[in-house]
C-alpha cells in the first residue's frame, strides 16, 4: 500500500507540475491560432535550421562512430584518457564552445565571417555533439561480441569487417545518434545567438522575449516541438532500451585490431580531434583570460561566485527530484515489467526544446500556479522534467543487472518491499545512482535554454549570467568569464568524482 501511495505522488506530481504546463502551451497556441499570421520567411528559417542541424547530426555521427570504434575496439594506449577528454563538451554549456572556437578561428587566420555563418554553426555543433554520438554508438560498438568480429576477420580484412559487420550491426544506434544530435542541435539557442546566425529557435526567442508576441512564439514553437518529439518517438523501440545511458560501458578490445597501421590511424584521429576541439582552443582561452592579470581573475571569480552557489543549489535540487522520480519509474519497469505510458511521457518531455519548455513554464506558472512562479520550485520542476529520462535510463540499466532471484529470495524470507529497496537493492546500485545524480546535476548546471526563461528574478544563475555578460564583453573579459565557467563546472565535477571514489572504496571494503 505504502509503495502505491509513493507512486501516486510521483506520477501525479510529474503530470501536474511538468506535463500540464506543456499541454497548457498547446492549448493556448490553438486558442490564439486565428490571431497569428504565418510569415513565409519564418518557414524558410525552419528549413535552414533543419539543414544545419541535419548536417551537424550527420558529421558528428560520422566522427562519433569512428572515435567509438577506435576507443572501444582498438588496442590503443591512453584510450581511457581519450574517452574522458572527448566527453568534456557534453558537460559545458554549448556557448562556451562557440567562444573557444571563435578564438581558434581568429588564431589560425580564417575569416571570422565564415565562423559566423551556417557553415560555422555546423562545425561548432559537430564538435559540441560529437561526444553524444560517441556515447550512443560506443555502447553499441562495445556490445558486439568479439567472436562476431573475429569470425569475420578470419575471412576478410579490417575494412570489410568494419563496414559489413560492425556498421550494419550498430545501424539502430547510428539512427539514434543522428536523431539525438539533430534534436539537441535544432533546439540549441545559445550558440547561434552568440554567432549571430539566424535560426528558427532564436526567432521564437526573439518573438517571445523581445517583441512580446507570445501567441506567435507559442504557435511557431509547435513546429519545432512536433519535429523534436516525433523523431525519437518514431524510433521509440531503440530509445526505450537506450543502452547508451549506462553506468560503465565495457571495452571489448579485439587483439587482431592491434596492427600498427590501425593503431596509428586511431591515435592520430583521436589526438587530432582533441587538439582541435579542446587543447588548442583552451590554451588560447587561457592566454586571453589571464591577460588582465591575477587581480582581475579574482575580482571576476568573486563576482560570479554567488551565481555559482545558486546554480549549485538549483542543479542539486533538480537532480534529487530526477533521481527520486527516475528510480521510482525504473523500479516499476524492471520488477513489474510494465511498460506504461510514463516511460513514453519521460521521452517526450526530454525531447522538448529547452526554450519552449521555458515558455510553457512561464505561461503556466504565471497564469495558473502563480504561487510557485519565480521560485526555486519552478526551476526544480523544469530540471526534473528535462532530465529525469536520463536518470531513469541509467538506473533502469543498473537495476536490470541485479538478479531477479534476489528479490524473490527476499520475498520468500518475508522482507517487505521497502526493506528490499533500501537494504538490498540500494546498496548494490549505489554507484550507478551516484553516477546518475552526477550526470543529471552537471546537465542541470550547464543548462541555459530553459533556465534563461525561468530563473528566479533577483538571483543569478551561472550559465545565464556568463552568457549574458560575455555576449557584450571585450575579448579578454569574455575569455575570463568562459574560463571561470569551465572552472566552476569542474569544481562540482571533481567534488562528485571524489565522492564517487569514496563510495566505491567503501563498497569495496564491505565486499571484502
Amino acid at each position, binding site marked *: 500500500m505504502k509503495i502505491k501511495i509513493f507512486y501516486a505522488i510521483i506520477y501525479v506530481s510529474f503530470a501536474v507540475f511538468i506535463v500540464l504546463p506543456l499541454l497548457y502551451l498547446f492549448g493556448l497556441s490553438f486558442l490564439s491560432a486565428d490571431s497569428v499570421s504565418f510569415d513565409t520567411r519564418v518557414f524558410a528559417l525552419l528549413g535552414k535550421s533543419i539543414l544545419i542541424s541535419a548536417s551537424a547530426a550527420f558529421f558528428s555521427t560520422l566522427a562519433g562512430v569512428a572515435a567509438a570504434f577506435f576507443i572501444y575496439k582498438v588496442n590503443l594506449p591512453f584510450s581511457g584518457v581519450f574517452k574522458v577528454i572527448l566527453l568534456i563538451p557534453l558537460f559545458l554549456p554549448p556557448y562556451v564552445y562557440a567562444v573557444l572556437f571563435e578564438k581558434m578561428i581568429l588564431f589560425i587566420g580564417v575569416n571570422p565571417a565564415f565562423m559566423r555563418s551556417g557553415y560555422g554553426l555546423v562545425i561548432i555543433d559537430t564538435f559540441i555533439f560529437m561526444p553524444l554520438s560517441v556515447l550512443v554508438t560506443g555502447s553499441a560498438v562495445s556490445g558486439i*561480441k568479439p*567472436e*562476431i568480429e*573475429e*569470425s*569475420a*576477420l*578470419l*575471412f*576478410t*580484412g579490417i575494412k570489410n569487417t568494419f563496414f*559489413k*559487420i560492425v556498421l*550494419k*550491426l550498430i545501424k539502430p544506434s547510428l539512427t539514434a545518434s543522428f536523431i539525438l544530435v539533430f534534436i539537441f542541435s535544432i533546439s540549441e539557442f545559445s550558440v547561434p545567438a552568440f554567432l549571430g546566425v539566424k535560426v528558427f529557435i532564436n526567432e521564437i526567442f526573439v518573438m517571445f522575449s523581445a517583441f512580446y508576441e507570445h501567441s506567435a512564439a507559442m504557435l511557431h514553437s509547435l513546429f519545432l516541438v512536433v519535429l523534436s518529439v516525433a523523431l525519437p518517438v518514431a524510433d521509440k523501440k531503440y530509445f526505450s532500451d537506450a543502452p547508451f545511458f549506462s553506468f560503465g560501458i565495457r571495452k571489448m578490445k*579485439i*587483439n*587482431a585490431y*592491434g*596492427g600498427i597501421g590501425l593503431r596509428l590511424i586511431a591515435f592520430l584521429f583521436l589526438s587530432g580531434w582533441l587538439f582541435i576541439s579542446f587543447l588548442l582552443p583552451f590554451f588560447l582561452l587561457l592566454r586571453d583570460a589571464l591577460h588582465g592579470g591575477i587581480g582581475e581573475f579574482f575580482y571576476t571569480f568573486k563576482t560570479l561566485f554567488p551565481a555559482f552557489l545558486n546554480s549549485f543549489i538549483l542543479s542539486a535540487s533538480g537532480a534529487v527530484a530526477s533521481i527520486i522520480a527516475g528510480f521510482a519509474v525504473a523500479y516499476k519497469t524492471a520488477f513489474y515489467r510494465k511498460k506504461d505510458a510514463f516511460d513514453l511521457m519521460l521521452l517526450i518531455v526530454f525531447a522538448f526544446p529547452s526554450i519552449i519548455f521555458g515558455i510553457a513554464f512561464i505561461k503556466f506558472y504565471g497564469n495558473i500556479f502563480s504561487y510557485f512562479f519565480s521560485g526555486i520550485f519552478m526551476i526544480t520542476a523544469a530540471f526534473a522534467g528535462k532530465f529525469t529520462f536520463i536518470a531513469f535510463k541509467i538506473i533502469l540499466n543498473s537495476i536490470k543487472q541485479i538478479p531477479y532471484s534476489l528479490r524473490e529470495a527476499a520475498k520468500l524470507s518475508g522482507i517487505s518491499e521497502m526493506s528490499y529497496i533500501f537494504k538490498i537493492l540500494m546498496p548494490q546500485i549505489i554507484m550507478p545512482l551516484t553516477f546518475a545524480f552526477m550526470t543529471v546535476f552537471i546537465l542541470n548546471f550547464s543548462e541555459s535554454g530553459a533556465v534563461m526563461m525561468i530563473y528566479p528574478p533577483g538571483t543569478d544563475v551561472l550559465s545565464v549570467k556568463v552568457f549574458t555578460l560575455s555576449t557584450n564583453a571585450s575579448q579578454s573579459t569574455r575569455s575570463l568569464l568562459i574560463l571561470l565557467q569551465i572552472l566552476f563546472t569542474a569544481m562540482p565535477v571533481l567534488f562528485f568524482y571524489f565522492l564517487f571514489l569514496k563510495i566505491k572504496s567503501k563498497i569495496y571494503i564491505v565486499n571484502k
Partner: protein
Amino acid sequence: MINIKNITHYYGKTAVFKDFDTNFKAETLSCLLGSSGSGKTTLLRLIAGLEIPEKGIIRVNDIIFTENTNLKVPPHKRKIGFVFQDAALWPHFTVYKNVAFPLSEKKEKNIKTKVYEILDFFGIADCGNKYPHQLSGGQKQLAAVARSIILKPDILLMDEPLSNLDVKLKKKISEYILKIKNEFNLTVIYVTHDHREAFATADEIFVLNNGKIEDSGTPEQIKKSANEYVKYFLEY
C-alpha cells in the same frame, strides 16, 4: 604441420603460456583436452592470429604465421576455419549470407551453387533463408561449421563446438566433423573439456593443464597414461 615454438602469452599479469612448445600433425584430428583456464582456447586463438603472443613463433608448413608480437600473416590469409563455442553467426545475415560472406566470387549463381552444396552436405539446405535466431542449437553449429569450411581451409580450429548440445546432436555433429576432416583432408584442432568427446573423435589427444601439456598420444595411449593429472582428469 603446425609448429608452436617457445610461446609466452599473458592475460593481464597472468601467464597463460610460458615458453610453450608443441606440434600438431597435418591431416590429423587433434584434441586439446583440459579443464577451464588450462589455455586450450587461447592456443587456438594464437594459431588463428586472434591473439598476439608476447614471445615465440607459430609456423604452419614452414611459413611463419606469427613471430613474437608480429602477425606475419593476418588472420584472413592463414587459410584457417574457426568454429566458435557459441557459433558466432552474424545475426543480421541469413544462414545463406553467413556462409556466402567469405566467398569473393563475382557471379551470384556460382556463390549460390557453392553455398547450397555445403548446406546440403550438412543437411541444413532448408535453413538458407532463416536468420540465426530462428535456428536450433544444432543447426547453428552446423551453419557455423559450413561457414568455416566454405573456403576449403587447410586447418579447422574448433572451440568446444558441441558443449551446448544434447547427446544426440553431439553424436550427429561429431560424425559430420569426422566426415569433413576426411573429405577435405583437413588438419583439425578440436578443443573440449569432455574426455568422452575426445576419445570418440580424436586421432591424437593433448591434455593441457595450466599452460603445459601433461601428456599426449592416441586415445588408447591417453587412457593408459601414467601421468597423475591425466589419471585424475579422466576419473571425472
